[in-house]
């Protein structure tokens, strides 16, 4: 881990070890929550989360005055606590993305301005902590190993990101500070999300309750209307899910149906795994791998579709009921009427 000073922590507060930082500054979470004099920090924390809902608004920490620096870290840590208390998952995601965008700008500037060895070291270590990518400075550029580059760049679709359109020498890809930061954008977001998810759920701190409730209300407005539970399961899928839940052996085709149906309905892989846990031959690693394969996240990268009613009939998986009239794919079941 990079050893960060107050300035770096104010810029990249998600890198701070929360407990350690508070202790070092001589505060407790309780004080942050209740202390009258610290009310501005609580407001700032709330504003920081609220800003995330405003598309296009990026939170800019004030890092010009050194006495303000700890406030930036406190307000971030407190924002995480608030999000955790309110259980607002969509909001947390938005918050992470917004914070990441702010950090991106700062990180790009830090990379671009890094001249001395220690500056370069600090900036590259921050990147390594965030993404695991080992970058190095070479002339005016930053270089990353080809395999690290490829893993990330293949998800970008612009032609400039094709390997052939890059300077590649001795196994290293040359990037500008801007490109370097762009390359790890997703990991920056993921890192912040994981910090929020990994934070311990705080005891209900009275001083923060009001804020947390307001965030829950914001979350309710954010939640997409067609959430995971939208539409009922088609009878064939219900049957497959029940077979699994009963711990009976479901055919390969039946498992395929269940998984592709749930994926298409927007379930995430961790949401789906429990459906398979009761299978007599259940192995977590295998199930995860298979789901990732079906979702197109591994290997060839093609996501598998949910099969048609006709195909399912030939496979003997169809359990048609009158409500199935007029649909050709289980995904249409109970949707839009």
């Amino acid at each position, binding site marked *: 881990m990079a050893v960060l000073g107050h300035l770096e922590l104010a810029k990249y507060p998600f890198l701070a070890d929360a407990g350690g930082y508070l202790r070092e500054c001589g505060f407790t979470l309780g004080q942050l929550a209740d202390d009258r004099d610290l009310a501005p920090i609580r407001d700032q924390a709330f504003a920081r989360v609220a800003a995330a809902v405003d598309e296009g608004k990026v939170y800019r920490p004030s890092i010009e005055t050194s006495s303000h620096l700890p406030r930036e870290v406190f307000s971030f840590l407190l924002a995480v606590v608030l999000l955790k208390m309110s259980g607002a998952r969509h909001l947390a995601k938005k918050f992470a993305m917004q914070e990441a965008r702010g950090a991106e700008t700062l990180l790009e500037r830090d990379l671009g301005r890094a001249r001395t060895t220690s500056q370069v070291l600090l900036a590259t270590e921050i990147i390594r902590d965030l993404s695991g990518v080992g970058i190095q400075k070479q002339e005016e550029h930053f270089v990353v*190993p*080809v*395999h690290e580059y*490829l*893993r990330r*760049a*293949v998800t970008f679709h612009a*032609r*400039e990101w*094709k*390997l*052939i*359109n*890059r*300077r*590649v*020498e*001795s*196994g*290293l890809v040359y990037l500008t500070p801007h490109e370097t930061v762009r390359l790890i954008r997703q990991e920056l977001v993921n890192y912040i999300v994981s910090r929020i998810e990994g934070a311990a759920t705080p005891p209900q701190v009275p001083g923060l309750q009001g804020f947390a409730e307001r965030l829950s209300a914001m979350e309710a407005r954010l939640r997409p209307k067609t959430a995971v539970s939208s539409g009922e399961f088609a009878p064939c899928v219900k049957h497959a899910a029940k077979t699994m839940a009963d711990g009976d052996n479901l055919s*390969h085709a039946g498992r395929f149906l269940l998984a592709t149906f749930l994926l298409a309905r927007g379930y995430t892989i961790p949401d789906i795994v429990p459906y398979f846990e009761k299978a007599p031959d259940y192995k977590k*690693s*295998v199930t995860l*791998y*298979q789901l990732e*394969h*079906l979702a197109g996240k*591994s*290997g*060839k*990268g093609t996501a598998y579709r949910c099969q048609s009613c006709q195909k399912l009939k030939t496979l003997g998986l169809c359990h048609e009921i009158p409500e199935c009239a007029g649909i050709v794919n289980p995904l249409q079941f109970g949707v839009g009427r």
Partner: protein
Amino acid sequence: MRPPDASFIRRCMRRYYFERFDMIELPSDMPKREFGYRRADSGMVRHIQLHDAADLRVLLLQAVPLEVYVSNARYLLPSQPIPEKVWEDAHLIFDIDAKDLNLECRPSHTAVSCERCGHGTPGPCERCGHRGVRKTSVACNSCMKAAGEQAGRLLEILADDLGVREGVRVYFSGNEGFHVHVHDEQLARLGAAERTELADYVAFRGIMPERLGVTRDRTASLPRPSEGGWRGRFARGVLGSKAGRSRAAREISSGGYDAFARRVGGMASSLGARIDPGVTMDVHRIFRMPGTINGKSGMAKVPCEDPKKFDPYVSAVVLSDEPVHVRASCPVPIRMMKRRFGPYSNEYVEVPAYAAAYMVCKGLAHVVE
């Protein structure tokens, strides 16, 4: 294959696998690989798990397959169907095939014969009237030399640009090409999309004119020969001398961006390494096993130090020189082991087993009982 031909090939292979089992290069982590094989009389058998050399020896001597394959991938459960195997990694492979180079000499060493009766014939069969023909290309030194040059080009790009110098093994495919295997732990973990990018890179496909210093506003700042990567290679291979550079600059400023883009797009085959991209990107494929015999030629897939100097018609000939009687219809001569065979027009001849096997595998000769 006719029964006497099939049993001759079987005999050759069994003897080879019995006597020269040491020629076979066993993969690392053998129990994690998927094996497959094909016999003369049946389809492909895949999803086989073998634990050690003894397992393989039993398979070879019992099934006596015409082709033997092994995955470049490692799996947790190699004998399961693909979606359930649990892929771990797969070393990177590039495939170069002389067939894809389409050299001018190709027609001169391609035998055309009747699909049904095997009679050598350019059009509808003079003997049985059947219309379908089969084209079989036979040994050609120029084709192999050209394929070797492509392999050399690939090795250079791998080393200079991609930094891959160690763990690279080149094999003659056993028929008309080369397989380049790259054993690199990091690259082995890449998925299909990443491998496609590597394939495009070495093949010089998809480059934008901007990368070569040509933009829409026509201020061309062309690459210099001393530069690394594709810019340097382009400067050396296309722009050439100083005079060439200024001529190119003039051409670009008169023809413009689009003309340049078209021109560069057409250079993949002259500048890039001509690999089969489908092979490189497939992470679940099984490949001919090094040291086994290629059923299309009776020659073996063998390692080769320098593909540019490799003579497969000596180094990959592994069958015996015992005399065999065949009836051969081979319109083009073949050179193997520095000897010349043919051309034969439906003749009874006695040739060494390796040459007999070569012609029989190509459908150009039949064993006389």
